[in-house]
């Protein structure tokens, strides 16, 4: 134990190891934060919920921070809602006792390009007579554009860009350009007019105590800190939740494999003879089994649940090259005088294997274990990339898979691939750096090289 502590102290001498450790600690903190901030059920709701949850996001929008690096500013997504901000809505009761709504939504438009799409969502309560709306837009230069007048159902969606009458009224420009075009710009080369806009929605109801709520989304090319995917989902959820999943998978698989391998190898070496032979043969067969194809087969035929895959991974990796390496070390330890002493005072086989043999090898195992973690993290990503990831959990590999199947690289949606990829490589590198440094510490022969 003391030796372990000393060795860990030595780790501080390697700057690369410190960098690795810092990343690992950061990832662990991120995982803990994620699990607390977005509980499992909430994450599933956000990731699997359906259009009701995602309608506020544009499709395949890049993250907001893209604007920090560009001169021409891309359009950010603007979301205005009377449900979330009731103060936008003023209700007056007119002479006949019916509610009259005046909704004023101010917003700043600062982008150098037009919004990608826009949508108005209305909710209203009424029994028979539909409420009536009239929508106008006030531009920064004081023009007042009539958008539309119509009656609404209990839930109503209005998409100005698909409204032909509006397009005609705006002089042949679709709503995105029609609303935001600078009047001085040519029609062929429209430029958005920046400044403070105001969207005014007047609502008339024809029954007592009717209510109207409005939500307006100006879909831009940017949304959220992580961007969105083809189904309007916020990638942030998956990126965050991918962290604990990846760490847990990598750690459990590495731990399960190494510990079992160590125990089996110890038993094989101690008993020798036929036990050893059988285990050696199993190892040889197992090492030649096509690992990934078998894993693919298992996840296609049985279950894609991450627990099953974890189990199968561990089972297939137990009889790996580790058995042979540990065997070589155990062989040496087996001949040590203290083992002979233990044998002479009648220690049982189990006692010798688990109390005397295995503890000696633990320092050698630790670097191996740490180096193994990234390979399992990437294994999970590989399976997800093949579409065999856990059907429920959002993981990094699945984001890459979605991106690949939707041709993100062809269409220049680099953020979609890069974000999970960078997290993956950070995780992989961090563990590899620490593992390499540990290896040098525990295997002094390497130190001078």
């Amino acid at each position, binding site marked *: 134990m003391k030796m372990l502590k000393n060795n860990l102290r030595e780790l501080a001498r390697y700057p*690369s190891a410190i960098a690795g450790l810092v990343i690992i600690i950061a990832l662990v903190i991120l995982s803990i934060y994620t699990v607390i901030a977005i509980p499992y059920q909430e994450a599933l709701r956000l990731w699997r919920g359906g259009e009701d949850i995602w309608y506020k996001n544009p499709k395949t929008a890049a993250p907001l921070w893209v604007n920090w690096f560009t001169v021409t500013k891309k359009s950010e997504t603007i979301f205005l809602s009377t449900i979330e901000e009731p103060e936008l809505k003023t209700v007056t009761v007119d002479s006949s006792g019916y509610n009259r709504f005046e909704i004023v939504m101010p917003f700043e438009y600062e982008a150098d390009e037009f919004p990608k799409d826009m949508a108005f969502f209305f909710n209203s309560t009424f029994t028979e007579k539909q409420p009536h709306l009239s929508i106008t837009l006030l531009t920064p230069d004081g023009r007042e554009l009539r958008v539309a007048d119509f009656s609404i159902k209990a839930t109503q969606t209005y998409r100005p860009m698909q409204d032909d009458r509006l397009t005609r009224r705006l002089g042949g420009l679709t709503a995105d350009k029609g609303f935001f075009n600078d009047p001085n710009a040519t029609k062929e080369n429209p430029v958005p007019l920046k400044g403070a806009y105001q969207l005014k929605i007047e609502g008339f109801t024809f029954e007592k105590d009717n209510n109207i709520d409005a939500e307006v989304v100006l879909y831009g090319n940017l949304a959220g800190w992580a961007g969105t995917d083809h189904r309007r989902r916020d990638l942030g959820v998956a990126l965050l939740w991918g962290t604990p999943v990846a760490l847990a998978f990598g750690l459990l698989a590495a731990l399960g494999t190494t510990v079992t391998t160590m125990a089996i190898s110890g038993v094989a070496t101690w008993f020798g003879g036929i036990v050893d032979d059988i285990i*050696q043969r199993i190892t*040889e*067969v197992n*090492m*030649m*089994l*096509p*690992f*990934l*194809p*078998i894993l*693919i*087969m298992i996840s*296609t*035929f*049985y279950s894609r649940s991450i627990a099953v895959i974890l189990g199968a991974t561990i089972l297939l990796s137990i009889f790996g*090259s*580790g058995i*042979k*390496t540990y065997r*070589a*070390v155990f062989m*040496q330890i087996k001949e040590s005088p203290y083992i002979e002493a233990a044998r002479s005072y009648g220690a049982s086989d189990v006692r010798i294997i688990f109390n005397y043999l295995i503890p000696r090898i633990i320092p*050698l*195992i630790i*670097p*191996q274990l740490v*180096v*193994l973690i*990234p*390979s399992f993290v*990437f294994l999970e*990503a*590989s399976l997800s*990339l*093949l*579409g*065999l990831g856990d059907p429920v959990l959002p993981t990094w590999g699945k984001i890459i898979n979605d991106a*690949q199947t939707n041709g993100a*690289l*062809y269409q*220049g949606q*680099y953020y979609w*691939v890069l974000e999970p*990829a960078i997290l*993956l*490589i950070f995780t*992989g*590198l961090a*563990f*590899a*750096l620490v*593992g*390499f440094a540990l*290896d040098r510490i525990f*295997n002094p*022969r*390497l130190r001078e*090289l």
Partner: protein
Amino acid sequence: MPLSDFYLISPESQSTMSEEPKVPASTAQTPPKKKKSGQSAFERIGRYTVVRLVTLLITVTVGVYLTILIANMGGYVDEIRRGEIREAVSLRIMNDPVLKNLPADARAKQMEGLIALEEKKAGLNQPFMVRSISFLKGAMTLNLGRAKSMSSDSGSRQVNLIILERLPSTLVLFGSTGLILFFAELFLALFLSRRYGSFLDKLVVALAPTSAAPGWFYGIFLILIFSALLKWLPFGGMVDAPPPDDRLQYFLSMLRHMILPVMAITVSQVFLSVFSWRTFFLIYSSEDYVEMAKAKGLTSRDIERRYVLRPTLPTIITSFALTLIGLWSGAPIFETVFNWPGLGRVLFQAVGLYDTAVIVASTVIFAYLLAITVFLLDFIYAMVDPRVKIGEGAKS
């Protein structure tokens, strides 16, 4: 501390193929025993090879049998067969004018009877242990049944045709990558062991952890840089579409498509391998007999070839075999990322279409490929390993 301890570090450096301990440094020192008369090195290599061949065949059989067991645990192999039989029988009834005009329930009864008969004929009512042996025989002889929905380019539903058609592209890609990797790594490792402590050496040591990420991962980055951003190289595939008629053009187009995949594998492998091989060379260069050779005034070329490379080569080949096994195993994902029309992609497509017969068959083929790779490298191993050649300690 034994050398093998050092190899805890790199996952690909243990001996898969032979269970002899690593070449101890002393082997090279001990003078070769006099050859037994009547048994040439050639014979010994031959015998070694035959023994390995038999061992590997047994290994493949066990592997394939395991695959069948896994695949049939949910009755999937049976399902393939049952489905085939049901389809054939119902087709026969539909085409039979007498049976077709029977009332529905009588026809159904007739059909069930026929299916039962056919299943009995196919041996499906036998216990699984017996059936699995017949599956095993089929799989070992590549008699792999018919695909549910996939077909080969020539339109056949025969699974072995689908698979064999894709085999060459996989072989071309991974074969050439393997060769390039081996020689590049060997050369670089030797070069660095000579320039120990130089900037390049330190760079490789620093970059070694990057091998934590697999080839497909770097592939995505390379595609992003060279295809998406710079537009120099194709996104994927094996040749241009439509494929050029001219042989030379075809070859050149394929070469162009191979640049990125080869690069991706190289980037993911080269640093760790070069790092561990170079360390290995360095350890061997500090052996006493190398010092002795230096004292004798041998040229560094000779020392490298005869005293460093010679004893390390078997281990390096073993380590390389493991790398290749890793590459083969990773083919499904790698070929998917690069859209390479090989075996791995067949497996991926079969997963998408849920074509059980093809999935099982691909796994079987991969088992074969791994065994053949190991066998070929074993053969080379036998040629370079002095123990096999001289007959000392060559117990296999």
